[in-house]
């Protein structure tokens, strides 16, 4: 079982994600520079947060055209679990692997702080150990984190159970308080909050267990249990 952590120029949560995957949850993880291809034996791919290409044009817009995205796309089609966090989510959206768009927060400011997520879909590879409606205390840190979809797409998302997380309160003006979504088959998940910043008790002043379950869900999915 091997998890690929994709690194774009300007990624800045790659090392945090790698630390949590390897040191905390004992995954076998490897960094992949955006110009490289992904090997066939990868069991899951994570696109970490940051400011790929300095957020130029739009967050994630340039990275979505990186060579590695072609491989990510192939893996998505094969049903391999793929998670995009924060800028990773923005990239997946820009690449068309997830629906919707991420707009500037209604405050028009970068927002960093703790909030609560509500689990809306616990059938994905990253949420199968969580309970429906479970609360996850977690930090957000973004300037363009307001998830937007039109009404028609929203209906579709609801019908297909593609809304994975909602904020427990209005945080940034996201459509229907959506914080994370998945593709139709459920293997590609994107979320704005940072589970890697909430999975250890040392840095989570509230409760690190719910965020830990995101990583444990993946451990379970790709066939390794401690």
């Amino acid at each position, binding site marked *: 079982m091997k998890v690929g952590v994709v690194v774009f120029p300007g990624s800045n949560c790659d090392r945090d994600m790698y630390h949590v995957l390897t040191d905390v949850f004992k995954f076998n993880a490897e960094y992949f520079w955006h110009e490289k291809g992904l090997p066939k034996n990868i069991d899951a791919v994570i696109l970490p947060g940051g400011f790929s290409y300095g957020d130029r044009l739009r967050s994630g817009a340039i990275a979505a055209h990186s060579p590695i995205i072609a491989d990510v796309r192939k893996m998505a089609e094969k049903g391999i679990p793929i998670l995009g966090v924060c800028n990773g989510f923005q990239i997946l959206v820009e690449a068309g692997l997830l629906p919707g768009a991420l707009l500037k927060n209604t405050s028009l400011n970068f927002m960093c702080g703790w909030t609560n997520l509500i689990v809306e879909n616990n059938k994905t590879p990253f949420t199968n150990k969580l309970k429906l409606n479970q609360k996850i205390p977690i930090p957000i840190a973004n300037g363009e984190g307001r998830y937007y979809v039109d009404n028609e797409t929203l209906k579709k998302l609801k019908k297909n159970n593609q809304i994975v997380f909602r904020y427990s309160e209005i945080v940034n003006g996201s459509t229907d308080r959506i914080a994370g979504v998945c593709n139709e088959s459920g293997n590609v998940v994107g979320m704005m909050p940072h589970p890697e*910043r909430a999975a250890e008790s040392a840095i989570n002043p509230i409760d690190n267990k719910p965020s830990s379950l995101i990583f444990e869900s993946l451990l379970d999915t790709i066939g390794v249990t401690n």
Partner: protein
Amino acid sequence: MSLEPQELDDLTSKIGRKPTSTELQIVAAEWSEHCSYKSSKKHLKMLPMKGRLVISEKGYDSGVLDVGDGYVITAHIESHNHPSAVEPYGGAATGVGGVIRDILSAGTRPIAIFDGLRFGDIEKDLQARWLFKNAVTGIADYGNCLGIPTIGGEVEFDECYSNYALVDVAAIGFGKKKNLIKNHAKKGNIVVLLGGSTGRDGIGGSQFASDSLESENRSAVQIPDPFIEKLIIEAILEARDQHLINAMKDLGGGGLSCAVSETADALSIGIEMDVDKVHTRESDMSPEEIMVSESQERMLIVTTDEKLKKLQIICKKFRIACSVIGHVTTNNMMHVKKGKKTCANLPTDVVANAKLLDRPSKKPAYLETIEQEKKLKPVSDYSKMMLKFLASPNIASKIWVYGQYDHEVGIRTVVKPGKDASVLRLDNGKFLSAKIDGNPKHCYINPREGAIGCFEEACRNVVCTGAKPIGMLDHLQFGNPENPEIFWTFLESLKGLTDFAKYFEIPCVGGKVSLYNETPSGPIKPTPLIGILGLIEKTPISSQIISPGDSLMIIGDTKDEMGGSEYFEYIHKFIGGKCPVVNFKESKSNMNIVLELVKNELLKAAHDCSKGGLAVAISELCMTHKIGCKVSLDKVPGPKLDVDRVLFSESHSRYLLVFEKKNLKKLEDILKKDKISYSVLGKFGGENILFSKSSKPIIDLRVDKAQKTWFNSLRELVVHG
């Protein structure tokens, strides 16, 4: 933008000929106050720089402290006042960039940013509000993009900064001791310029910063590009891991002139370089412009021919430019050519060492009468006053500011911003606590005691997290040093800091002097800023919930020291009175006792008592923990004082401690042993913050109402005016 007549004579006699125009520009940049410290350098030597944990190496732009187990932390502080006063977004952003590269040049990864911001009265002054808003966005956009958490700082508003801005940035790095760059160079080594292209931005920036701000010279402000900086950080750290760097220096004030001459001088070598080899943003730049441009995101690296190929591969990966601009010689000359033509050929020690000045000093006349108090109008309703006080820009929560900074990235932030000091976890299981503090209101009244107070306050803040102070950064910001009265305040502050540092054995690991901070209506108040680094060997004080029934204790005496207090200045609009004075002995025992209590796990929380006094400090505890408290002012230790003085005096060496009632005996045993002045003031519970004297309520506020006001007022003011 030129040399003083006597400096020109000095240069001419030292080189024995008339300098060329390029030489003049190079020397003018390097001999500017900003780069040469010519007014302050003689005096700065008084600060203790050595210590058990201090590692000193030649040519470092940052201080290095050994934190054990093969790890080091690096720290540095800088300001970007002049640029931020004319272009707050770019000025503040490039201020972050510069200090980050200082950390990087030691070979350590930057892990935290702190910023201290000062502006005019934002309640009345729309320009101050504009400066504030844009400086915060500049810092946020730069630091957030780099993925380096901004975990602390302070914001203060005072009319003395009208039409001006102080933007101070401190940064901390972390790494393995064995990976530190040991700067060295020998003949034949090559000199490489890596990073952003050299353009016409920031031309003459260091001279601009070394003069009173008379015109808005926006072209002297550099343009920020955090994306390139991020790529440089990763590229340099990869190059460090592959041992490709012999010596390294950041390009900051004075641009190439400063980096080349100081590198050569520090390593006792010469450098020959060709301006045509420098990658530029524009094609027709003159040698002078190339040499003094302060374009950002550039690093100077000394390496060898063999290592260059590998360095180029790394640069290619990150798509950053990397030009070989020259090579190392042994003649101790800085030789600048354009193609075959020599533009400058100067001894490096001449360029890098301006003639130091011995400026006259004289006690300012205003100090003779400043300590006299005048009769103030009594406050009729302290509850009402307190609510207004909690909403005032200096007292209000700064969550609007730090909520725009990514303070979690890097997943080290154990104690988050908004507390006494922020705490980071280190890879060796220890913790680093850090805080910056300034207090121009106190320093204006008494430059010596005010500066000592800043030092002690920063120490108190890290002590409240359970950390022992191990190093200090100082940033001395004053007006025009050519004015003897201003220079006197500089010397007094410096002497005070030196005395405190020596008594507490806290070495100064880095610092900066910023002079000529003049506004259209005169000099700024003396604004020394102190950064303290504290180390926690085991665990920091854990964040615990304060429960009803928990007790509140104060350590230290509350004295009649109202001068420069927020209460006098904000409520009564009065500048004057005696400012708080630190008693060194008392300060030390109080500090040690709090550390002992934290270590023995007897405390639920410890909180420093400072700006706004006891009333604000206790309210802050209540508001952050969302719980009421009943406080008896009769029990406050110290001389008998009027009630407003007890509530709002800003006396130093005081700590508020929260503990479970059952631990009282254990606490008292320790406190009595050391003859500490302390008192249990009351207990937590209920929904009101209640201060009473002789059983009569003085202040009675609902916690939720107070908290709402305290949290939201700054945002309301900035966003909705």
